[in-house]
């Protein structure tokens, strides 16, 4: 995978992960172009498109678009399920994830992604193992810190 972008229906970028070296300028250009292309597509259209010499795989979850750029030989369907597994991971971690979780806890979204994908390749597909890694990190945290519960905007189902 060359990169992954999360953006809202309004075209606001929520997460960007680049697995190939690109300048900031190029990244911005690519983002602008792709957000425009994907948002212009109608629902029910297929989830894949050719873009430059890459294949774009995208899927919309509620207000968020998840969009991956993969190379010619890469498998589109499995990429679609990479997106879904990532959504599941976020969901499990945040408890019914919504866009706001990703806005306010953007760093967590990056940490979870790093446990799941590294260098553009799937590192660990077991939901348990990925969350265990994040969970352990949370346990390592200092209890003395000021606590802040952002319950006003994060709904949750259950603790994992």
């Amino acid at each position: 995978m060359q990169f992954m972008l999360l953006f809202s229906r309004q075209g606001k970028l929520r997460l960007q992960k680049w697995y190939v070296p690109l300048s900031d300028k190029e990244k911005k250009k690519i983002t602008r172009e792709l957000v425009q292309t994907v948002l212009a597509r109608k629902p029910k259209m297929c989830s894949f498109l050719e873009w430059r010499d890459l294949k774009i795989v995208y899927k919309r979850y509620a207000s968020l678009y998840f969009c991956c750029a993969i190379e010619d030989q890469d498998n589109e369907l499995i990429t679609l399920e990479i997106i879904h597994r990532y959504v599941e991971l976020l969901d499990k971690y945040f408890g019914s994830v919504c866009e706001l979780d990703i806005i306010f806890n953007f760093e967590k979204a990056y940490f979870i992604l790093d446990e799941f994908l590294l260098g553009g390749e799937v590192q660990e597909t077991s939901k348990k193992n990925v969350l265990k890694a994040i969970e352990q990190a949370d346990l390592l945290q200092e209890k003395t810190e000021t606590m802040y519960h952002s319950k006003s905007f994060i709904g949750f189902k259950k603790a994992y």
Partner: protein
Amino acid sequence: MPAVSKGDGMRGLAVFISDIRNCKSKEAEIKRINKELANIRSKFKGDKALDGYSKKKYVCKLLFIFLLGHDIDFGHMEAVNLLSSNKYTEKQIGYLFISVLVNSNSELIRLINNAIKNDLASRNPTFMCLALHCIANVGSREMGEAFAADIPRILVAGDSMDSVKQSAALCLLRLYKASPDLVPMGEWTARVVHLLNDQHMGVVTAAVSLITCLCKKNPDDFKTCISLAVSRLSRIVSSASTDLQDYTYYFVPAPWLSVKLLRLLQCYPPPEDAAVKGRLVECLETVLNKAQEPPKSKKVQHSNAKNAILFETISLIIHYDSEPNLLVRACNQLGQFLQHRETNLRYLALESMCTLASSEFSHEAVKTHIDTVINALKTERDVSVRQRAADLLYAMCDRSNAKQIVSEMLRYLETADYAIREEIVLKVAILAEKYAVDYSWYVDTILNLIRIAGDYVSEEVWYRVLQIVTNRDDVQGYAAKTVFEALQAPACHENMVKVGGYILGEFGNLIAGDPRSSPPVQFSLLHSKFHLCSVATRALLLSTYIKFINLFPETKATIQAVLRAGSQLRNADVELQQRAVEYLTLSSVASTDVLATVLEEMPPFPERESSILAKLKRKKGPGAGSALDDGRRDPSSNDINGGVEPTPSTVLSELEPPAPESPMALLADPAPAADPGPEDIGPPIPEADELLNKFVCKNNGVLFENQLLQIGVKSEFRQNLGRMYLFYGNKTSVQFQNFSPTVVHPGDLQTQLAVQTKRVAVDGGAQVQQVLNIECLRDFLTPPLLSVRFRYGGTPQALTLKLPVTINKFFQPTEMAAQDFFQRWKQLSLPQQEAQKIFKANHPMDAEVTKAKLLGFGSALLDNVDPNPENFVGAGIIQTKALQVGCLLRLEPNAQAQMYRLTLRTSKEPVSRHLCELLAQQF
């Protein structure tokens, strides 16, 4: 309690993010950000030392600001400080900041690398993983220089935790992709392959990606991965849907790992070991069988994961291209998907079928789906799916269905999205030419293209129709009639005017007998378009007019009047003005005979590969034209539809009727030219290399043959001297005029090889012999060129070939014993002295034929040297006047893989490489 509130909420950050979200305008947002930046700057600069939490919070805010799209030019130091914190979240934020905002500040890089080094050595797996993630995320060369050597050790260390191994594998992969030279191969590679056997599925998942990448460069080193991958795959495929616990995804066992294993296998030819192969074929069949079973879940995730494996399996089957049964099954499976209600599956089935279409085993099976695909082109609502359908139609096209496919594509073109029109135009043009049985159909098709999508018809396409019409006299009359009719449309595209102008200028006489298209009618029709056209088209039309004066003397007065008009003679455009002036003068001063010579019909274009094909390939990247390049599917098409093509840069000048620059020069009698220098002769004909290759291992044979001329070669070489006899046979009954074959030394060759010859005169009819005396002065890489020029029936002919003199002709075989051989082999052990090539066999692998070729190549064949009797070993000395070059060679055939490995060692680097290249093409 939700995981997020386990103690790391940063209140200040949340407030800041809320503030930004509440900003009503971009300006307000920028104002708020600037305020925050000023605040953070002052905190960082302040006298009071910040505690870790505050530092983390501010660094996190900076990161947020950066990710919003604003520039950040400070805070890097504070982030680096966080790296050495022993509090996990502080370290984590530090690493995230560094990963996102890499800065090449050398001072910082040193500090960052130091922190990473400490964490890698910490033996704390969570810290080690953070450090590895950071290296993988940055993936820069500097990181590679610092850590590429350490990571393999971590990866294969017995005491590394599973999670560390996973991160290390993918971290190494990223570094290898960025700078392969920095990752040292070694003893660890064998152990990496064995990670495929690891108990932990996550480790296997990460390791397969690494191996897939590494094995592409070093297939032999990783060969053992084939059987390991097959047995792993077989265990997954045959496991029940719950066996793999958390690695089962919606009732599909380990889909990601399965796809990756199938990808890895695509790096290799089918397994050589029969048992492994059997097991693999069983796996592939199981996957195909499972596709027919009822789904275990209605969730789309289930079917996606299952089908991801299925499509990857089909890719592997296509990659092997050796199991007709599996190929046909794959095709049937894809056929089912073509009508699936999921758009995604229809898209992928069309895409995958495109590659199936080029396999000889499944081409026919693909063709049975033509109606479904045509229907997809007409009815799919998504343009990207329609595009795939068009691609597939193109790929499945052959002579049997060309008319249907071309007409469907033409119909689609009328409503096609603008973005893909040009590509469709190219495809139609290529198919029409490739599969034309009668050329009137071809001409109709191209004119339709111009009519429907004139703006998207590129120069290559309309040049091409002119070339074909010029070269085929059976279609010229039809073409003239058809363009004439097309031009009568009230609004016709400028490209139509160009094609029409050119064709009528050349062949308008063929329809002049019909009063409805008499010369004056043709002229006034063309001239009625003149004022609406661009300069380039008007220039072309002026050339048509002067050609008309020659074809139809009765139009002379009218045309001269047009040329003489002020709007032409004083045209602001210099090209138009010059043409008008020169054509006017030409038509007034030249006699009818001279005029007829100057304005003679254009000679046929040389036969070459289609430039449209090249253009399509450029547009689509390599492989796009594959359906047409590989002749294997339809070899018969080459004979009647063999391409004719001027290279793009020369296209215009070749197409232009003669005389734009200086028409007068053409009136001079073309005297026999002096010996051409290298710059005077044309480039070698495209097949020159292939012809040369035929003579690497033999000295006698036919070097070249066309309808007019045959050139035979007979040669002998001794030490550094050689003599070559060239036989020119005139196949026509007419004499060649000004026949002049000459030998040219391009570049430095003059100092490397001396070829002396006398010029020969060919009186025509019979065969003439030319003797060349050759002396090899020093080692050389490029062969001399043979330029043959003559006039046949008034048309100049020029032909440039490569003379079959290659360095190996000066080989002297040397016999030696095994011991001597190995001693010399070791002496030539510098890397630059060795050249090696691993390549697929192009001919049946017959030991006797190979032996004959090696002897023909010039070296001695040494028996009982190589411990493996299948291998060939040879030795010899290349004799040149200045020096002698000792050569040793070894050829290792691998009958199962149908591959060879060829190794050459000589005392001179370029010679090793050159000999290796020459010889590798012989098998």
